[in-house]
């Protein structure tokens, strides 16, 4: 466990010092401006606009930090081969990978939580509203989504053979992950059996990022978010992350460093 902790702190320090947090700053500025503009143009409900756009901003800034971190660290670790000296140490590849996952997630959490606090401040002091419990719940869901995406991204890093490939596959997965929610609708349409089978396989394999998407429903009075739903979402996030992590781990164990 200690070695995982050391890898985590090493990764965290590396990412923070590579100025990833500037993305938080940039995202915060962009989303504050957009929210303010939209609130003027939309005639009212300023606090709702801040919260809606704020949640989008939290997700986008977290994803952007993750993509850039994956690109930068792929270059350092695999193309420049900084990973050699670490794996030659008495640390298992599984510990190394888990430490990297936690390190990445720590940086992303800083960005997402930072944005969340800023949005909450804007809602209270500028919008004159209150931060709803569903906003906080939605923010936590975004954090869970970011954890799942982190494991996916790092698994791609362990499998990928180029930085561009890793980033592209990751972005494609994020996009498809949001589309997954509509696959069931597609399955109810009149499609060829082979297409339906393929859709089912895609549905099983890709992450259902819509499961963490409460952004569209934080004002929905019909939304039920109780202990059962929390348990299912957390379990889904953990289960998918575990599967992806093990796939990444197996690839790292078998990977040959030429």
């Amino acid at each position, binding site marked *: 466990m200690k070695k995982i902790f*050391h890898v985590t702190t090493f990764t965290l320090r590396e990412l923070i010092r590579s100025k990833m947090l500037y993305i938080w700053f940039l995202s915060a500025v962009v989303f504050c401006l957009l929210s303010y503009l939209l609130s003027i143009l939309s005639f009212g409900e300023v606090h709702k606009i801040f919260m809606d756009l704020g949640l989008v901003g939290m997700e986008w800034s977290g994803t952007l930090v993750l993509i850039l971190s994956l690109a930068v660290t792929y270059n350092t670790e695999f193309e420049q081969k*900084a990973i050699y000296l670490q794996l030659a140490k*008495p*640390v298992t590849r599984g510990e190394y990978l888990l430490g990297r996952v936690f390190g990445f997630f720590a940086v992303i959490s800083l960005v997402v939580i930072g944005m969340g606090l800023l949005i909450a401040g804007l809602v209270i002091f500028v919008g004159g509203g209150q931060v709803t419990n569903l906003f906080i719940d939605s923010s936590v869901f975004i954090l869970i989504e970011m954890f799942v995406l982190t494991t996916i991204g790092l698994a791609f890093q362990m499998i990928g053979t180029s930085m561009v490939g890793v980033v592209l596959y990751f972005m494609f997965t994020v996009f498809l992950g949001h589309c997954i929610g509509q696959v069931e609708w597609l399955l109810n349409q009149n499609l060829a059996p082979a297409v339906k089978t393929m859709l089912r396989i895609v549905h099983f394999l890709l992450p259902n990022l819509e499961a963490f998407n409460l952004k569209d429903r934080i004002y929905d009075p019909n939304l039920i978010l109780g202990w059962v739903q929390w348990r299912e979402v957390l379990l889904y996030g953990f289960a998918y992350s575990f599967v992806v992590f093990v796939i990444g781990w197996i690839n790292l164990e078998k990977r*040959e460093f030429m």
Partner: protein
Amino acid sequence: MTTPSNYAIQIKDLSKTYKTGFWLKPKVTNALKNFTLDVYEKEAFGLLGLNGAGKTTATKIILGFLAPSSGSVSVLGGKISNREIRNQIGYLSELPYFSREHTGRELLEYFGSLHGFSGKVLSQRVDEVLELVRMSKPSKDRVSGYSKGMLQRIGIGQALIGKPKLLICDEPMSGLDPVGYKEMRDIFIDLKKMGTTLLLNTHIMDEVERVCDRIGILHDGHLKEVASVPDILQSSVNVDYWVDVDAHDASKLSGVPFQKSVAENGGVQISGLVLPETLTLLSQKQVKTKGVRPLSSVMEAYFLKSIGARTSTEPTEVAK
């Protein structure tokens, strides 16, 4: 002399084949072929070879970065996947690369923590290693500002941080200036005296001569020879010698077999004799010598002869 049971590294019939290119018609490259080698504990072993001979491949298989196609490797009596074994190994890769955002001290602290050090013990160990590799002052600066030599020093520092029993270095002298080169060589000699086993992949013959006890010559994936360095230095490998003599003495050597060329200022190149024979020749001719120096190293000549490359000792026309 160590007993056969005290092996640091035991490699048996190791082969490594790469397949590259289109998967239906791959290009097969045999990087290593039936490579068998034993490195004894507490010895310094130099692995020599041309670029592409398979030295780095062999090192990576020893360290577990590559899986062998066949054969077996045993390190410090066990498998490299064993964490306790890796705790006793230090590794320096060729042109080591580190995260640019950390300072030298932070890097060593990180690598030391992976070896299980913590707190004051870690801090003291880092100070010792920084002192050893002469990086105490720049240790608080970020790695992004380090020169090649400084990176190499930090590299050797992280390899030594865990007090390894076995140190494996791939081209450890790369990027070092003459002072750094001497300091690195002194570190290796000190480590050897302390009982650390060294495995050095290197091209630098001087380093091999001064540091290593034995060498192995790898060529085209095959281990051509394994020999002890003292034996090589005393062997009958011929190198050319340049003898500085007075101009009038140079004429005494004209027409002498083995004399390759004469310079106007009184220098004579003698080819085809080992050093004692060269000195005997000079004495017979009653030539007053001002200095004798080899034009190439014995080790280099031995290496080139082993791999079948043309050496400068091949006979040429005797100067008239």
